[in-house]
């Protein structure tokens, strides 16, 4: 079988079992303990997210300080089990927010209910949050009305697994979030190729929250290069106007609801959305990425006991936009004895426990520049080992999509009900966050 899961366990960071659900006979109680001893309590770093103990495979993921482990004895498909664990985390998060020890303990009954529905005999069953809501009775006693009962029946007999029929909203609303994470690896200022982009990519997701009545047909358009060029054949005018702004998508994947045949032939994205939140599309770009920040580090060694560090950050986007939650992390050597920092903007602190200077700026507009200088005093050591300078990393959030992706339209049609595209209230938001954003120095 592609994914037969014998058991699912959830632990806190100490290795205490918070949830344990066994689906198959071949997984015994001893498996629960084996994982704690061999992985959670192990001294070394995790060498693989798939650990084999006594011929049993443990697939584990960690969320904050919670361990989730899927256990099996079969030769399953690893990607699938991990996707299932992620899905489970998503479903849980949709019910109670962050996956933390407290939330898990408080929602312990709910989690057992979920585990009962999404896996049967170890096989994944329905895992769409929207559809699951029908089966999970969190509020306890709920004498079901006739209507609800018929909903279950229609939901599970319908042709479309991800949406039930008969959904009604007074206000038809749509929220579209373009969420991107921009990743960068820059070469150091002093090297054969100074200050160059070694690799950069954006991985993005289009997340939609739909509150629409009936069975609406949606059509989504963006500034995808291929589409723009296709359309450009008709009107040369538009090509020159929008051609520059189109983006080249390296690869993209869609939620199950999107008709792939239409995407392949016309590159148009049309679908009947699930109710509530779902991920419409996931994509990746590597060309013409707008790097929101540039980090220019200068490190000078003054004798054997002192380092001078100067880091300049430049924001590289429209002056009218504001970046938020900016954090620059400048690593310091292990034998640092003291640090003096001067920064023009924000607050900077030396954190000895993390071996780093952490510089935080709440907000910064585009096309600005800011700098920090630090003097690092070092203890003289006999260690001849040269300090391998770890890269300077950055975190931030910007209100645009670093890939350049723009939503051109999102149209809704519901032929059977009497509301039209104009009646739907639509919200679009762009958020760009830093992924791994590192500059070597």
């Amino acid at each position: 079988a592609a994914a037969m899961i014998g058991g699912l366990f959830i632990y806190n960071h100490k290795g205490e079992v918070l949830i344990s659900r066994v689906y198959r006979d071949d997984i015994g109680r001893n498996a629960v303990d084996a994982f704690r001893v061999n992985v959670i309590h192990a001294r070394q770093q995790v060498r693989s997210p798939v650990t084999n103990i006594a011929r049993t495979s443990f697939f584990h993921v960690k969320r904050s300080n919670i361990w989730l482990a899927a256990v099996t004895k079969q030769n399953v498909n690893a990607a699938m089990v991990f996707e299932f664990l992620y899905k489970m985390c998503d479903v849980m998060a949709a019910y109670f927010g962050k996956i933390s020890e407290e939330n898990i303990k408080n929602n312990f009954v709910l989690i057992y209910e979920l585990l009962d529905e999404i896996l049967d005999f170890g096989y994944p069953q329905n895992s769409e949050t929207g559809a699951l809501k029908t089966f999970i009775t969190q509020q306890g006693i709920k004498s079901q009305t006739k209507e609800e009962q018929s909903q279950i029946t229609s939901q599970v007999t319908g042709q479309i697994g991800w949406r039930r029929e008969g959904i009604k909203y007074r206000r038809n609303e749509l929220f579209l979030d373009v969420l991107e994470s921009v990743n960068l690896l820059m070469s150091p200022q002093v090297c054969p190729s100074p200050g160059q982009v070694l690799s950069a990519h954006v991985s993005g997701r289009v997340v939609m929250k739909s509150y629409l009545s009936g069975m609406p047909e949606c059509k989504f358009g963006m500034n995808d290069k291929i589409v723009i060029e296709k359309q450009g054949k008709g009107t040369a005018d538009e090509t020159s106007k929008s051609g520059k702004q189109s983006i080249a998508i390296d690869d993209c994947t869609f939620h199950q609801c999107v008709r792939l045949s239409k995407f392949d032939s016309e590159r148009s994205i049309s679908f009947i959305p699930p109710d509530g939140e779902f991920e419409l599309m996931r994509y990746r770009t590597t060309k013409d990425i707008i790097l929101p920040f540039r980090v220019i580090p200068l490190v000078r060694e003054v004798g054997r006991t002192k380092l001078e560090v100067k880091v300049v950050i430049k924001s590289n986007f429209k002056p009218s936009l504001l970046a938020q939650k900016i954090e620059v992390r400048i690593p310091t050597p292990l034998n640092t004895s003291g640090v003096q920092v001067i920064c023009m903007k924000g607050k900077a602190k030396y954190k000895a426990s993390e071996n780093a200077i952490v510089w935080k700026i709440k907000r910064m507009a585009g096309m600005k520049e800011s700098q920090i200088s630090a003097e690092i005093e070092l203890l003289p050591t006999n260690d001849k080992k040269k300090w391998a300078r770890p890269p300077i990393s950055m975190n931030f959030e910007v209100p645009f999509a670093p890939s350049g992706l723009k939503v051109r339209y999102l149209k809704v049609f519901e032929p059977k009900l009497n509301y039209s595209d104009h009646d739907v209230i639509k919200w679009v938001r762009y958020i760009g966050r830093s992924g791994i954003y590192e500059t070597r120095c």
Partner: protein
Amino acid sequence: MPYLGSEDAVKELKKALCNPHVQADRLRYRNVIQRVIRHMTQGVDMSGVFMEMVKASATVDIVQKKLVYLYMCTYAPLKPDLALLAINTLCKDCSDPNPMVRGLALRSMCSLRMPGVQEYIQQPILNGLRDKASYVRRVAVLGCAKMHNLHGDSEVDGALVNELYSLLRDQDPIVVVNCLRSLEEILKQEGGVVINKPIAHHLLNRMSKLDQWGQAEVLNFLLRYQPRSEEELFDILNLLDSFLKSSSPSVVMGAAKLFLILAKKFPHVQTDVLMQVKGPLLAACSSESRELCFAALCHVRQILHSLPGHFSSHYKKFFCSYSEPHYIKLQKVEVLCELVNDENVQQVLEELRGYCTDVSADFAQAAILAIGGIARTYTDQCVQILTELLELRQEHITTVVVQTFRDLVWLCPQCTEAVCQALPGCEENIQDSEGKQALIWLLGVHGERIPNAPYVLEDFVENVKSETFPAVKMELLTALLRLFLSRPAECQDMLGRLLHYCIEEEKDMAVRDRGLFYYRLLLAGIDEVKRILCSPKSDPSLGLLEDQAERPVNSWALDFNTLVPVYGKARWATISKCQGAERRGLELPNTASLAASGPLIPEEDKERVQELSDSGALMLVPNLQLTAEYFEKTWLSLQVAHQQVVPWQGAVHPDTLQMALQVVNIQTIAVSRAGAQPWKAYLSAQDDTGCLFLTELLLEPENLEMQISVKQSEARTETLSSFISVLETVIGTIGDIKP
């Protein structure tokens, strides 16, 4: 992990459950039940309150019902008699008007693992299969598999199987997928669910309606289908094309695998598919979902084995970021090592050099080993980088560099000169056994080119008393004797001291024996020593062999998208081999009190099974019944797969032989009487995959050898050789018993 005072907890909860005030207050009642489940989660034995929990199942509160059913499924095997009391409530719930209640009850009832439950669940399952709510049908379909598992290896219910096959046409996608899973389990003995043309085409048409789990599962089942014609094959591939772009990486990989298998005779299609999944795989490799990224990297490595240039232009994607988890970095280093070519070698080496000074010693060593791997092709550049690393004088770096050098001079003798120049001074920074052995080996074999070699070895000889590793001492003996051959004047004295120490004072027997051996060898004359010790100093052909590792795609296509690329082929082989033995009843020692099932076979049999399974992945089935006619027919229709002779003395005692063979599950079909000339015997055996082994034993008069001829119904070399080794062992043992 039973807590202290768990008995008190059981007592207290029992009291609370019986308390009528609690029972009257729904919330309080549910709270107490929750506490029972909490204790159960932590591993406390809560079977003591079974009776009270059964009573709690009769409620309208669905949450409470779910909790109680969860409890019952856990403890039913321990309290089968009490569990029967719950059946009544469950049966009633199975005909509840609410489909959710029906489904829940049926699912729980089928999960009660206790003897005798079958007769109660059969009817509800049959009703469930025809329920109008697909939610119930999904449960009922899997219930069939659960029921079959409870029966053990009983007969397959033909009517039920037919019903399940017809439910493959159900309109609910999950019912369809569950049917496949259920049939697969029920028909395991017969080779699983049959995917014929109508079923395959039906599934292909339903694919887009399934969710990602269903799609991945169906793609896996379709592997079993053989298209009749080329035309049909390409139709199928066209239909499945869009799944190579699915949002779920596992569906992409599942589809890729199916393509690779279906197109096994069309290498250009295979290459094309691998091109198509390149994008999704690279995306997964740079995804924020680290575990998925890990799985993708493992598969990238698998593809690189056949197509080393496949990802070469994307090498920068595999550069490590500082904050990535350890396991991803290690995989990326391996990938970099495998995709290197003329264009990117400079940049890749530059990058790897940076990793060698990483704070994590583990990661640094992996990077050094990777450079050593690349050095087999780009020797000069790599040796230079490695030499520079020695200047850092870091113990954890020096030891791995020296080990890399040792392997390198063996494979690429042209770098010997450079390595020899780099070695002096290394001894100061090596403390571990592996590193010392490598250094000493190099000094011994190539000592004539290293001016200070005798002095370095002399240091080791001086300190031999405090040396903790016997392996280092053994290496030292050999190295010094070798060096003595090329530089006798400088070594003679210390060789004498070392031999004296090893023979007179050393406690480790292996070291002492080695010392004695060399001492006696020296007594036999210097020519004899040279003959024994002057073996070749390198073997470049070994390096070439490794380069030829480019394997055809078909050699790993079946392993794609399984655990094999994740664990590595060798490790998976050991894991799955043991699993084979376990399937026959070898349970892990169960530390907790909750033993799910008792041992299936008596102790002494277990040992036998273990022994057999250790002699190869072969499992011979006991009590094979073959008629002489059938044997003769099969024997005549097959070619001899293996023939050999084993030494034999004296006459044969047919009874002894027959009994000995019986022990290892080889049956005797016909045998000549004792003393007949020529003497013959015909044997048969069958392994767990159904492969027959037919054997003829022949003893010619006056001959001291027995001729063995084996025929096999299916050509499988690995099981054949295991079978022959079993046979040899038996005949060897019997042959030794002289009359």
